[in-house]
């Protein structure tokens, strides 16, 4: 039995919200060339509608694998996953992904990339164009609408990647270390942008990261993952007030504690935790 961590910060997360994403005992075994490798073990996640959850874990603990399974790209070995009470079986626009790598279509302009998912949804051109314009301005890319992906920076590409899925109004949004390849300043900008979009559009977000400060900046709740096999070691609500400031003493204290706790990994516990 693993010790569960309880609320750390003075304020508790308030309000009861309905669970929208439910993952039960999810396990993934890869059959590699030598022996089967258990990458994920007994993962349980419940996400409430509108919640922003960060999954925090070291490299190779199976974070990407978890998101790939939840998006429907690869099947789990065992376990159950339901979105809005419907089982997840294959990829679909109600569960969108922002990938870590650049996954924009290089032959489409910024605006065309954002409009891509709208086509074939029976929207008339005028309405579609209005939508695209709205999301272009939401991510601050209006002046770049006719640029090609190779002509814009990494941060702008991730804005496009964000806009092209937000426009589809997914029920949950999976983000796989989307800002990891950006420099510190661009990363901070993107985090602020994500938070402001989240405040406006209130999506449910599952955000994967290995950066403690990023997790504390964004999350309502942090799921800490362990490696070999990958499983959820701890669940930590972050009850810091929003908007959060990275130089706020409370923020720093919280990040430090989380950071120190992570370093003592392997015991299935977060030592130094109250």
């Amino acid at each position, binding site marked *: 039995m693993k010790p569960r961590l309880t609320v750390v910060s003075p304020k508790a997360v308030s309000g009861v919200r309905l669970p929208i994403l439910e993952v039960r005992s999810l396990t993934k075994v890869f059959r590699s060339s030598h022996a089967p490798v258990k990458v994920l073990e007994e993962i349980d996640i419940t996400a409430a509608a509108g919640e922003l959850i960060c999954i925090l874990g070291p490299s190779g603990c199976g974070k990407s694998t978890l998101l790939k399974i939840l998006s429907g*790209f690869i099947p789990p070995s065992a376990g159950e996953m339901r979105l809005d009470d419907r089982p997840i079986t*294959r990829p679909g626009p109600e569960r969108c*992904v922002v*990938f870590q790598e650049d996954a924009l279509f*290089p032959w489409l302009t910024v605006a065309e990339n954002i409009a891509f998912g709208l086509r*074939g949804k029976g929207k008339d051109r005028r309405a579609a164009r209005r939508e695209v314009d709205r999301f272009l301005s939401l991510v601050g890319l209006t002046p770049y609408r006719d640029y090609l992906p190779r002509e814009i920076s990494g941060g702008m590409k991730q804005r496009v990647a964000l806009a*092209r899925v937000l426009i589809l109004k997914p029920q949950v949004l999976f983000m796989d270390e989307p800002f990891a390849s950006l420099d510190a300043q661009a990363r901070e900008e993107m985090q602020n942008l994500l938070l402001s979009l989240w405040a406006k559009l209130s999506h449910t977000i599952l955000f994967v990261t290995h950066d403690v400060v990023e997790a504390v900046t964004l999350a309502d709740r942090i799921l800490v993952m362990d490696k070999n096999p990958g499983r959820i070691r701890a669940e930590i609500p972050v009850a810091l007030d929003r908007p959060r400031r990275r130089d706020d003493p409370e923020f720093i204290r919280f990040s430090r504690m989380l950071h120190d706790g992570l370093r003592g990994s392997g015991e299935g516990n977060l030592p130094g935790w109250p």
Partner: protein
Amino acid sequence: MNGSTLRNGLSGLLPWILPALFVLAWIIVSETGLAPTYLLPHPEAVGRAGFTYIFGDPGQGAYAGRFLSDAGASLFRVFMGFSLAALLGVPLGVLSGRTPAVRRLLSTSVNAVRAVPGICWLPLALVWFGIGFKTTIFLVALAAFFPIYLNAASGARGVDPLLLQAGAMMGVRRLRGTFAILLPGAMPSIMTGLRLGLGIAWAYLVLGELTGVPDGLGAVIMDARMLGRIDIIVVGIILIAVMGRMSDLILKFSLRCLFKSARRMT
């Protein structure tokens, strides 16, 4: 004139330097008598022969004014053979690039047939289709098929799976995915294959026409050899080179007009 227009002017000149040097060398060897005229006629003689061939009245001489009908016949054969190769090669290539079963089904046979030099098919084609139109088209299509097929296959195989995943998560199904993601993603390779195929199509056109068809640029060359008209042979070679180059430009231009991906990724 500033530096950049000068540089643009220079790089515009660049492609013409080699042909100019070549003609210069040709003039020198002809003027100095290094090459006897029965082996290599003087450029001026070739120019005159070319002029009569292209603009002359049919009554003026053996080859006068035949260019339009010859070029038309050759172009039509190249077009037919090349289109056939493209219509088969691109879909089959994309299919085998994406479907391991199709790849396994086709690759051994395709590679075996590819190993046979195209000219080996000539006798068989003559037996099957007789001399002329059909044989030429068969040879052209067969030869152009392989580069088109192979490049389409490697292009389709090389499309980033992440792009297909991105499509799937945005609700794109098979059919639309093929046209909206797979083909554009493979377009640079497909275009390379088509251009290589078109080049080879011209080579095999001449081979097909050498077998004794009455019209076409290859036929003119063969005919001129029998009559000892070296000037016309040279004219034919130059015209084939020019038309080959032009058809490549036209192919590139039309692909760019038709497909965003060809325009933006190559």
